[in-house]
């Protein structure tokens, strides 16, 4: 939107084609970027384009030629509301009710939507409780939350206002708000965090605060010693309910999304299903196979340093290996089960490379993966011969090569390659010049993958598309 708006500002009359259900989001985004009346036309989601075009063209030409209304010629300034430091004063009971108020959102089919919360009751952020939370950091309450180091926040985030540059304030999306340390402490209280968790909450804020590109979602992994120090659950169920640290830290991210990002789905950002509350979980670096680096080391920090790694928005779309734990055990212990038959190792005890069993990585999709890997499985890979994580990443990359003929039957490359107008990176040639049997990597490079050794219990493997590989120092926020 910011790049589109600049054409109107520079005197070029413009009209934009969007979809009918996105009008509210369009208007909000236009307002936020200074042109609330920018003109648009809607395209049908269902009528074929060659028919719809006959309706669309008169509307487009009208939008480019119809004289401006007085409203469209106005200059003014929108002043922010809800700016008071003290939001409510009263009894705890009344405060509880105040923070839990909802608004009816017409574009959500008149469903109520929480004004300050994730929809659940919160711990009321009294002045006393927030002061207590602030004891968890040496940073001053009125200090702005800024990037402590340079980060590659991604093109989409940059164009929406986040520079990623050291010293620049964090812009929480979609509403482009900023925040002070005290505001993050307020949210930490509401989420149920304790002061010793506060440096992690501040690192979550530095990473964008659970807002992502405005649509929210995703998850976080804590790498380094702080996880044990604050009592995170490292064992079974670390993504499930019950552990105060794992749960409340995840909740803090969601409360930032609501209060700092200011997202109201269908009003100021488009989306589909949304992503649910995701626990923050710890990496179990003590269980890494010899020679395998922890996430902190992979991201350039020391083993003794605590960092927060963003997991991205794929947490809601996790996939699992299609095996029963017992079958997996038998496959590794003695070469039994269908896994062993498929891999041609029947009767041969492991270690075997279980990744070879999984056919579905690039059947329909492409890209690298984030693996949530139990220590037992990581050790099987190590014993099989992968002496470093990089060796596994390299293996995954090499395995991802598929014929161009097959790659062109995927969906997303149509968009990523701009309808095949660009250059194929491994050959340096135009996509359309390559023979059909040319092998292209469905995974762009080895380091598009990330293994998190974590958890415990029955032999399972989870993975999701994409990896962020960007760590935020927690220690800097102590």
């Amino acid at each position, binding site marked *: 939107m910011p790049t589109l708006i600049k054409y109107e500002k520079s005197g070029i009359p*413009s009209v934009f084609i969007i979809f009918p259900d996105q009008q509210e989001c*369009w208007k909000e985004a236009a307002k936020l970027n200074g042109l609330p009346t920018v003109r648009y036309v809607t395209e049908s989601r269902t009528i074929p384009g060659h028919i719809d075009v006959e309706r669309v063209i008169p509307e487009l030409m009208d939008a*480019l030629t119809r004289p401006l209304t007085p409203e469209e010629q106005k200059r003014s300034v929108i002043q922010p509301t809800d700016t008071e430091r003290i939001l409510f004063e009263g009894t705890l009971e009344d405060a509880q009710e105040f923070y839990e108020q909802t608004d009816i959102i017409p574009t959500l089919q008149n469903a109520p939507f929480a004004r300050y919360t994730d929809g659940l009751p919160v711990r009321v952020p009294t002045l006393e409780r927030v002061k207590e939370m602030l004891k968890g950091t040496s940073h001053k309450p009125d200090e702005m939350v800024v990037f402590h180091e340079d980060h590659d926040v991604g093109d989409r985030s940059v164009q929406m206002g986040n520079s990623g540059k050291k010293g620049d304030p964090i812009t929480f999306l979609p509403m482009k708000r900023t*925040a002070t340390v005290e*505001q993050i402490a307020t*949210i930490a209280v509401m989420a149920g965090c304790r002061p010793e968790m506060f440096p992690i909450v501040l690192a979550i804020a530095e990473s964008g605060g659970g807002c992502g590109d405005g649509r929210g979602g995703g998850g976080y992994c804590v790498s380094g010693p702080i996880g044990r120090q604050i009592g995170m659950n490292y064992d079974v169920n670390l993504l499930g309910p019950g552990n105060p640290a794992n749960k409340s830290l995840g909740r803090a991210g969601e409360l930032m999304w609501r209060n700092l990002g200011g997202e109201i789905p269908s009003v100021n950002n488009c989306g589909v299903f949304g992503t649910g509350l995701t626990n923050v979980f710890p990496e179990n670096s003590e269980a890494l196979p010899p020679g395998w680096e922890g996430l902190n080391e992979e991201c350039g920090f020391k083993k003794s340093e605590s960092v927060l790694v963003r997991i991205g928005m794929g947490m809601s779309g996790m996939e699992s290996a299609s095996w029963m734990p017992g079958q997996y055990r038998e496959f590794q212990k003695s070469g039994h089960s269908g896994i062993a038959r498929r891999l041609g190792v029947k009767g041969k005890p492991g270690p075997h490379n279980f990744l070879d069993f999984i056919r579905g990585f690039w059947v329909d999709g492409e890209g690298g993966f984030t693996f949530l890997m139990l220590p037992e499985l990581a050790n099987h890979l190590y014993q099989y011969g992968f002496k470093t994580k990089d060796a596994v990443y390299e293996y995954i990359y090499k395995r991802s090569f598929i014929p161009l003929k097959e790659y062109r039957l995927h969906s997303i490359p149509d968009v990523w390659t701009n309808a095949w107008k660009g250059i194929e990176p491994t050959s340096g040639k135009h996509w359309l010049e390559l023979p059909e049997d040319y092998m292209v990597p469905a995974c762009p490079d080895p380091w598009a993958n990330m293994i998190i050794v974590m958890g415990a219990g029955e032999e399972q493997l989870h993975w999701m598309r994409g990896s962020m590989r960007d760590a935020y120092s927690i220690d800097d926020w102590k």
Partner: protein
Amino acid sequence: MADKTYKCLNPVGIQQPVELFPLAPRLDKNKLAGKTIYISVGAGGEQGLMIPLPKRLKELYPDINWKLTHAAPHRTIAGSIALSEDEMKDADALIRGVVW
């Protein structure tokens, strides 16, 4: 005895004032001949509409100088740029589709 009262803090982030601008003046519908109007095709998608659209515009408005541009791949800054700096110099108007 009255219940104790508490001061409770605001979790809402800091919103900067937003300066609102007027739209650019529109084209005169009786003087469209010779005008240069760009049709910017958003990265990759919506071929169903964006392939017939330029063809029909040229048929219906042959006196307008229609120019077609394609954005770079999606999820890049370049992907959101509808007109280059050079294109902006001779653009009299812009149709951008589909925006997202």
